[in-house]
């Protein structure tokens, strides 16, 4: 079946604007993860969902970042009042269960904040 999909693939925005990034996990995967890949910080965990709840939000860098998941499927990562340091590739991954299963990654959304 289809893999993890993310949209948009690229997003250019102006500092101070809000952006929404979308992730469609693999069908049937109950766990969903958001990571960020940037030059200075490497690959960083942001948040994970088990079903619609988020047991671990420890990686969200500030209260400008939020995420939700509805229907146990699609997730949206929202960044409010974007800053230049938010520029990065935002990756979504999904897995069947918890730590015991492989996380499958999507192609990412490249966010550029001007």
């Amino acid at each position, binding site marked *: 079946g289809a893999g993890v999909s993310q949209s948009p693939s690229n997003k250019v925005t102006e500092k101070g604007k809000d952006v929404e990034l979308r992730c469609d996990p693999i069908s049937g995967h109950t766990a969903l993860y958001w*990571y960020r890949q940037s030059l200075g910080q*490497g690959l960083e965990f942001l948040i994970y969902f088990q079903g619609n709840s988020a047991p*671990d939000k420890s990686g969200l860098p500030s209260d400008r970042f939020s995420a939700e998941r509805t229907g146990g499927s699609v997730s949206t990562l929202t960044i409010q009042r974007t800053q230049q340091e938010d520029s990065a590739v935002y*990756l979504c991954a999904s897995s069947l269960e918890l*730590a015991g299963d*492989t996380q499958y990654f999507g*192609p990412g959304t490249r966010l550029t904040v001007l």
Partner: protein
Amino acid sequence: AQSVSQHNHHVILSEAASLELGCNYSYGGTVNLFWYVQYPGQHLQLLLKYFSGDPLVKGIKGFEAEFIKSKFSFNLRKPSVQWSDTAEYFCAVNRGMNTGFQKLVFGTGTRLLVSP
């Protein structure tokens, strides 16, 4: 805090050379270990993983890795690299099942360039 170290940031090899990329992690409990690869312009793909059992794990494309618990290491190896192995390689760790700590902690990555 849990951390993962990849000591080789850039590696340049000729085709047919042998490859070993180092990975060490800091957590002392039960861990799950992964190697992911990112080919140019592509997304992260799983190369291989270790959960339990035989510490020598075989992955795709001729890669293997050995889990040495006493050394907190999970080094990646390939006997003979090809030009198509040019990519960035990431080691990652998460804690064992049922602990509530499911996030992957990644190393900083190793960029491998294989010259033909």
